[in-house]
């Protein structure tokens, strides 16, 4: 912009004598410029340049107009992908939070939840009914014990279930140790008020949220 203003500015009087030019008035300058251009450009009588330029559309580039996608996406909340989740460590429990006493209230809550779910755990309620409810229940806060396992060192670990993933259970033991126990090839026992239920971990390898929708087949005996 500055350069253009400079070009269009009038030459100062001091330079007129030096350069040997004289600035013309506005109308005279316009007429001179037009006449000069007419003489310089090759006049082709065949083509009427002005009309050509006014009516023709010159295609310079080819682009499709972009569809408006951003409007739809902004309504749905963007989740984090697995890498971001791992980097943010949202599912990790900090060491100062890994204490058994902190999870005891959760265990009480879970007991109440299960008793409500099975509409009161009476000794007369049928095991079938309770099993059906337990299959779809959420197990966070239950006290799990590994009863049988193909790997002997897992057998006997007991604790409150803190997190349930697709393939593992994370359990906190009384010694404030967070143990990760794979579900496969193990049998877990869940105890509620004297009612003990055995869970075959190999058949339980779904996320807790997806398990509520899954139908379980009835099998006679299951070998580890």
């Amino acid at each position, binding site marked *: 912009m500055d350069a253009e203003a400079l070009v269009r500015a009038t030459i100062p009087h001091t330079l007129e004598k030096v350069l040997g030019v004289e600035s013309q008035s506005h109308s005279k300058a316009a007429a001179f410029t037009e006449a000069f251009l007419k003489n310089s450009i090759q006049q082709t009588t065949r083509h009427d340049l002005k009309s050509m330029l006014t009516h023709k559309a010159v295609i310079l580039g080819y682009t499709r107009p972009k569809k408006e996608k951003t409007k739809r996406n902004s309504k749905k909340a963007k989740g984090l992908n697995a890498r971001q989740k791992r980097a943010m460590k949202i599912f990790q429990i900090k060491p100062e939070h890994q204490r058994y006493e902190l999870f005891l209230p959760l265990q009480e809550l879970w007991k109440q939840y299960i008793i409500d779910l099975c509409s009161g755990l009476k000794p007369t309620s049928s095991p079938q009914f309770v099993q059906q409810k337990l299959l779809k229940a959420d197990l966070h806060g239950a006290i799990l014990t590994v*009863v*049988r*396992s*193909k790997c*002997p*060192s*897992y*057998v*006997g670990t007991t604790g409150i279930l803190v997190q349930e993933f697709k393939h593992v259970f994370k359990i906190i033991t009384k010694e404030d140790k967070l143990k990760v126990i794979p579900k496969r090839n193990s049998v877990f026992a869940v105890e509620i008020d004297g009612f003990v239920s055995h869970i075959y971990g190999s058949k339980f390898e779904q996320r807790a949220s997806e398990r509520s929708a899954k139908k379980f087949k009835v099998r006679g005996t299951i*070998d*580890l």
Partner: protein
Amino acid sequence: MSAELDRTPRNLLLCEQSSLLDEKNRLSAQVQQLHFSYKVSVLLPECSSAPSHLDSLLSSFSSFYLIRNLPIYELLDKDFLQKAVYPGGVYGLSYRTRIDEDNCVALMPNGHLCLSLDKDSFELLGFEGKPCRFNHRSRSRFVVSIDLTDSSMAPGGRGYLRLLAGLRSRLHLHTDFLLSHHPGGRACLQPLLLRYDWSEHTPEVSRCHLTNLSCPVLQSCDPHSLLEWLGTVDADVSRENSSSSFLSSLVCPDPNTTLSSALRVSVCGLLLPPDIHRLIQELRHYLERPLLGSWVSLTVHGFVDSPVSWGDSEHGVLRGGENFYTLLMFHDHSYQLHLATGAHDTCPP
């Protein structure tokens, strides 16, 4: 069906010939390693009645105790460990448990406890173990081998507490148990005997006098036919092979001689290697006397259902489960030792 019969399960026969005068002979080591022997049979040729020394020796074999329904965690009892296991010399074996179906327990004199468990029991117990070497593809049997003299298995140690918790609360293992202790006898086993129902037994001795026994010439006989012949004598199988009887077609191997009389003595029970050792020495003295038979045969059978055969090696039953050895002693202090095992066994020492 016929394909199965064509392939009989293999058995292993190890033959050794040496002399008792040679100081490098391994006879005492081999005898010592078969911890659990069930039956000893002795064949004395040209003998009409048992010599008195032999009789007294046979009746002085250590007695053994049968404890009914012993829970196995009692074998980890502190008193029992102090009195019986740590000094060495305790022999224990579970009774009437089949090695291919039930859980079997063996306690060896060097302080090793061997549990042979089926798959469910092993998964319940929760102690480290290895799958059985035979039939390892189907993984249906597991062997837990524990050294009770090790520092981690001392009472109060980590391994001890884990095994005790496993046997007490997770896997309730009860079996009848045969127990014996070599130098100590009943006093060492007192901690266990006090609390459970037990009965004392002495090995049964039976004698039989045979007449007109055809016997092969031992030096020129091959081991398989010799062992077959000894088996027929021991089991009272007729060797006539008459055309009218189809029960047995076994014959005495040729060339053969006829003995006018022979004595067959057998002892049954939980027999301990030190006693068998004394018996071998006594038979050696018997052979030194002139005018009597020039050879003696002694066969020692191990238990079919024991989890271990020689030393600590695993033992299994496929169709026979035999593990035995036959010692043929001659007048000139030389001997032939034939060690035989069945299919699910490793090579004897």
